[in-house]
């Protein structure tokens, strides 16, 4: 997000600076960014073109998101939730607490559920990240859990929904026939403040049935 804003700001306040030159300058200086947080505060200021400091962390990284390769500018302290929501336009992953307390931000990394608010984006380089937006097939066919939620009218405000769905996707990969109790234990890292747990579990059991071909 800050990248877009900087580009726009640079264009409007310094007509002599082209986007291309700006980005080139940004990449050249990227090594310096880890030591200086002031690069991306253009506000009309010039790009700082310092020589790369030893041991500096590269900021332009490639991620595998929902099966596609995405290249983006990420400071090392940025969380995956922030990168998804503000740099990739993937707002389906929600931030409920930003401190690994609620699970609203759950995504899959190599198929394993993680709290994306507590994962540094740099640590998922080279790994497969799956978000709620990546669940449906190319032809629009929904994942069994998505289908089941629609059939059972699962969830209320649905702010916790994408986290629960992603966690359930992982559950059903490992266990096609969980009991309701096992499903609850698996999902105990996801909070639902509307307390729709009863209907959520019914949706999960329906999703398992759909997965098994029922």
């Amino acid at each position: 997000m800050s990248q877009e804003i900087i580009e726009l700001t640079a264009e409007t306040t310094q007509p002599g600076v082209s986007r291309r030159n700006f980005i080139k300058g940004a990449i050249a200086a990227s090594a310096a960014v880890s030591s200086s947080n002031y690069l991306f505060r253009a506000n009309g200021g010039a790009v700082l073109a310092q020589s790369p400091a030893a041991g500096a962390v590269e900021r332009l990284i490639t991620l595998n998101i929902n099966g596609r390769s995405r290249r983006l500018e990420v400071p090392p302290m940025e969380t995956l939730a922030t990168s998804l929501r503000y740099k990739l336009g993937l707002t389906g992953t929600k931030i409920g607490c930003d401190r690994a307390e609620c699970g609203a931000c759950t995504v899959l990394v190599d198929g394993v559920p993680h709290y994306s608010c507590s994962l540094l984006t740099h640590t998922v380089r080279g790994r497969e990240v799956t978000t709620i937006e990546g669940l449906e097939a190319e032809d629009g066919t929904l994942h069994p859990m998505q289908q089941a939620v629609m059939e059972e009218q699962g969830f209320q405000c649905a702010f916790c929904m994408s986290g629960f769905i992603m966690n359930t996707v992982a559950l059903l990969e490992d266990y096609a026939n969980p009991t309701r109790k096992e499903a609850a234990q698996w999902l105990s890292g996801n909070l639902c403040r509307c307390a729709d747990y009863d209907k959520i579990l019914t949706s999960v059991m329906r999703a398992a049935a759909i997965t098994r071909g029922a």
Partner: protein
Amino acid sequence: MADYKLLGKNYQTPDLYAKVTGRSKYAEDFRAEGMVFCKLLVSPMPHARVLSRDTSAAEALPGVVGILTADDIPEPSSATSEASLTDEPRYEGEPILAVAAVDEQTASEAIELINLELEPLEFVLDPLDSLRPGGPNALTAETEEGGTVRINTMRGREPGEIKWTEADVAGLAPGEIPMNAEATAEWEVGDVAAGFAEADVILEENSYFQSLSHQPLESRTTMAYWDGGKLYVYPSVQSTARSVGPMARYAGIEPSDVVLVNEFTGGGFGGKISGYAQAQIPILLSKKIGKPVMMRVTRRDETSFGKARPGVQARIKLGMRRDGRITAVEIHAVGDGGPYGRSGDHMGVGNIGSLAYQPVAMRMRGTGVYTNTPPRGAQRAPGGEQSMTMLSPIIQKAAKQLGLDQVEVLKINAPEGQARFGPPGRDGQQGNVSSAFAREAIDKGAELFNWRERIQRSGRRTGSKLTGIGVALSSFAAGASGVDGLFVIKPDGRMYIKSGIGNLGTGSTFDMMRAAAEGMEMPWEKCEVAWGDTSRHLPWSCSQGGSSTTHAHTRANWAAALDARQKLQEIAARDLGGSASDYEIGGERVYRRGNRSQGLSFARAAQRAIEIGGKYDGHELPEDINGMTTASATALASQGLMGVAKDNFEEGGRRMSFVAGFAEVEVDTETGDVRLIDYAAGCDAGTIIHPKTFEGQIFGGAIQGFSVALSQKWVYDRRWGLLVAKRFYSNRPPGILDVPHEQPMKWAAANLPDPFNPLGAKGIGEAAQGAGSGAVVVAIADALGEENGNFYRSPITRDMILTQLEQAPRGHDRLTAHV
């Protein structure tokens, strides 16, 4: 029981696909070109005055775009009104100023560079501290003469001060409220002295109900920008139509200059009904700097200013006759109004109690006290939740002492028909409910729960565990009226229904539109609902609070359907001869009675409506609809056959619904752990419109009730006045393993129509909570027995149970707040 095609049936709400695919956008998901972020500098103290602010270093930081302070905010309307920013913060975490910058990190760094000089002021955490002689006061106000006066309460709209006298406190033990101390509100019905004289059991207890935060999973993040003199605002609110007015007020503009977009809200529970003071921050900041501002409210900030339920400390005296009838109730209740007052809840203990238990005589007295803790607001059944939780164990104890069955006692005292309740009005008469099928609800629940068999397990020991069985009857508000319905049937034969109802997940945004479709006998597949964006021409609607929507909008949409039906009949008569009453509606046609072929399809009639104009296509509108509906309908003119009407159906009293909750718990005497084995509910909410969303309210409410009974509370550092339990992990809402999860829970409804709603429907969301908390509190008492089981204090945590069982010293008295 009417035979409906759509009402009472499950269906998939049209927002589900967006939700399951992650396409649904909440406030923080919107983006605008040039958008910047603001962070808040909040008060580190419970009560302070800002003596000076130096923001120069912050404003000079590259990337900082602007600052908003109390100087930029219009003067609040009174000394006790909440402002969005203030130089006299009255609770820890109250916003003092806001900084906008290109990203949050910059904004946060800028805040660190701001120098504030703060003078600490006197603060109050526990209302009783303020009432005791010589106790502190939470606020000061300026008098007209220019002096200051310390205030701790409000009498009507006048700030004032109440202190218990030496006579009040003489002989009072710690943890007691003087029943006859001065109060700011009171009412009385019947002869209380005679009622107690008639009682065979009299119980008198001091009881504590905790303050607790709403904690919606989505905070009140808000984004705003201005364009062409209009405000575009993306708040997290519970209502759509009703939020326009508050947003306009925050902005200082006319409501017609506001575009509000709010299609999905991540929970509210009463804390975001139609706005919140902090929405003014991005609104005014974006105006000041000329850029869109995203105010992302963190979890910590949400706990600070996201509203909370007023705690109540009360002295309750109850008399019961040997046949189980409650002959008298006397209550003195103190409500924690936070820093800006919320004076109703503690009186609600009496109001709602008088409905659910119909005491022969009652005296209710109460005082709301200001404290320097988070601002209070309505939270799911405000006053009612406290009432059910505090009164249920007292009723149960009396019943047991008389050897009576608790279900029978609830039925003996239950309201029916148009029962009277609450304070007497100006005419000396109490108000009444429109309908009450409470006994039927109790019976349904008892049957589902198998009460007769389960109560045999009462107190049964298995190893270290004791089984407890409990029942509670809960009631709360269930319907507003007098709002508008609006839809258009277009020449494509489809029905376009407008919903001004906010979508916080209850389903009512769409469920209530089914009433319009039902009225037109329209297949649901041919209906489209517009909601969530006020530029889509939405009608005036009720607030999404008070469980108002189901009743209000079934009525309003039915009225709109009757309007459209009449118009269709008139068009048919005009084109085919005869009078309107010769025609009827069915199968998407209007036709001569008994002769389907002599008629018009809806599609054709819609085309005719456009050709004829006038009232048929919205060029002429009813005079009594709200201005918002008029503006919306005007914009929709010439599009087809318009159904538009205000709900003028008759009124029969206040709408209230009833839930009887039944719980089985297991208390571990070694660990103090309370496990919920099972819960079932019997309900009266009139006609059920959508069973699955109804179920969501019954169990969602019950579970929030479980956490009131078992776990959630604030804990304060009393020396510094700072909240310790700020986040989910320290003030944990119930998780999936905390509630019965091995089998689905059960519910049943009486499904008997309210006679004053043509569709018979009432709301349900709030009555459901007291059923959960009341039943669990009663079940714990049942498990542990009369000597050890009654705490008269919520939540009942493990340490309380163990302390009681071990007869160990408690460390605080019965009524101490926030420990």
